[in-house]
């Protein structure tokens, strides 16, 4: 039986790769997508989600538009990382399908409450939709099966401020709500994602297959690799989001620690910083499982194999 997952996402180059990995993986059934501001505006990422589903011949999967703005902070998008459209140099045709009428946060509530204990939420953007859903319907905390979050940097430096990772920096208040909600969370922070670099050689391997999927990945990641080269002196690019998705069905990619993790919402220089209380003098109960070690090749082999298989099926 595949695991039922819903994806809350802001595609976004690595978000797109997570959507494709979900479609390529028989272990999971992608039941729907809710969209969120982040890498680009909500209107743009919603369009992108629809266009990627169409590209992968999966336009039966419903897309729900979510929040436009962070809860408290001003909006922050990342065109320098993902390009103005959110998808680098890729140009996907305008999608024929439209988003559903229901709001993204209501979709999360409806899915989780209609199938208690069955729905796995994978949140790979800023957490505004999830936070709003928790405050509107607190019972989703007890009824969601698991929550996989891409976000934070525990011992690793930040990628948006010296201390803060992008998703938690964009809406630290939403992250605070979600982290303290009591949901069963697995966090994928930069500590592990920065160990997994998608290299030019990996891209070349995919490009041996002539498919709209591999062409899209090449065009999208070329921009992403230029960004990593220019800003972070990394040869290749970090694909945070598909790794988070992979952990839903191949947990052995990472090693985990149960930790007490908090988010700085005090509006100083540490705003959006995620930190773990490793000493835990107050003996607080860990509020999440954090991926702190990773087998990078295990993930990359899985990713490449799955994408190759998907690409071969779509010409």
């Amino acid at each position: 039986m595949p695991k039922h997952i819903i994806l809350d996402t802001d595609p976004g180059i690595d978000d797109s790769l997570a959507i494709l990995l979900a479609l390529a993986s028989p272990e999971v059934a992608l039941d729907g997508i809710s969209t969120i501001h982040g890498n680009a505006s909500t209107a743009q990422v919603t369009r992108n989600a629809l266009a990627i589903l169409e590209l992968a011949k999966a336009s039966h999967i419903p897309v729900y538009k979510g929040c436009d703005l962070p809860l408290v902070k001003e909006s922050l998008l990342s065109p320098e990382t993902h390009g103005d459209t959110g998808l680098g140099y890729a140009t996907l045709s305008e999608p024929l399908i439209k988003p559903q009428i229901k709001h993204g946060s209501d979709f999360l509530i409806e899915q989780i409450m209609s199938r208690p204990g069955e729905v796995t939420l994978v949140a790979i953007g800023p957490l505004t939709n999830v936070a709003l859903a928790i405050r509107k319907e607190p019972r989703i905390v007890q009824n969601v099966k698991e929550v996989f979050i891409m976000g934070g940097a525990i011992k690793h430096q930040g990628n948006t401020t010296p201390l803060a990772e992008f998703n938690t920096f964009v809406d630290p208040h939403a992250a605070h709500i979600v982290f303290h909600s009591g949901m069963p969370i697995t966090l994928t922070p930069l500590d592990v994602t920065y160990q997994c670099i998608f290299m030019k050689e990996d891209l070349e391997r995919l490009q041996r297959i002539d498919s709209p999927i591999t062409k899209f990945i090449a065009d999208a990641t070329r921009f992403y690799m230029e960004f990593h080269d220019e800003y972070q002196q990394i040869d290749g690019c970090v694909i945070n989001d598909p790794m988070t998705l992979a952990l839903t069905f191949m947990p052995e990619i990472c090693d985990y620690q149960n930790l007490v993790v908090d988010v700085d919402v005090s509006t100083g220089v540490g705003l959006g910083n995620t930190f773990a209380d490793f000493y835990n003098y107050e003996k607080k109960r860990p509020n999440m499982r954090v991926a702190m070690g990773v087998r990078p090749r295990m993930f990359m082999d899985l990713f490449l194999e799955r994408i190759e298989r998907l690409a071969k099926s779509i010409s």
Partner: protein
Amino acid sequence: MPPTRIIIDTDPGVDDALTILLALASPEIKLEALTTVHGNTHVDITTRNALAVLEFLHAENIPVAKGCSLPLLVPLHKSGDAVHGKSGIGNANLPDPKATPVETHAIDYLIERVLAEPNEISIFPIAPLTNIALAIRKEPRFAETVKELVIMGGSLRAGGNITPAAEFNIHADPHAAHIVFHSGIPITLIPLDVTYKCLLTSADVERLNNNNSPIARFVRDATAVYMDFYKKYEGFNGCALHDPLTLATVIAPDLLTFENHYVDVDISGGISMGSTLADFMKVSKKPANVKVALGVRGREFVELFLERMMSLRGGA
């Protein structure tokens, strides 16, 4: 002039209950609905109280939508019982209501009503601002189509009533207040600076009870615990009409004087967390976002309140 159409977002609460009474006693106002939220007590109880007060006033046709049970980030306040009594409305023992809240969550109810009739509905939040903040974030058109907010909350020069710096409604969800104050919606603020000048005394309540009506008895029973609290903590024989004063903006605007200021909320987590600050000296150069009441003829408002209570019918 047609009556002003309002939805009250509320956490009854003693002075919240008095606000519902005053709204229904005032022909200048058409009360369209109540939305409920955590605050003075748990949202299950504030919702029950909202329904019970409406039934007591034979106004059970007015819909009640239940809202959020928790503030956005800060922990739920647990200080209400000493002020508002265990029931939330002092010693008033209203029977359990027969009506139930509408199915729709308060956030969606507010959005639906406002979008259905743009620029027609005024919202009077007299509680923590969680519902309003989430309506703003969920539906961006909400801020453009709601006519105005008239908020009881904050304190600009009068000090706090829950911490030395902060007023209760704002302190109970400062992040929500921050969202609302920066939303661009036209806001009128009724802070402690004016509400503490509107004191209902025990002599007033006695005078009201001279005509021995169910309304007068309700006001007496509802305010009993509230007045004990004022006596104990503030050395005063009476209580402030915080929430009802918001309605003065409609029924007796001449009693208030206003100034336009840039007002912000401290969400930084320090000792002034939840305090409201006005840029009186215009040092930030930011445009005014709030019309704030800073003067009131308090005694006249209390007399008006008593007059309206004498004309109101309720109970068996």
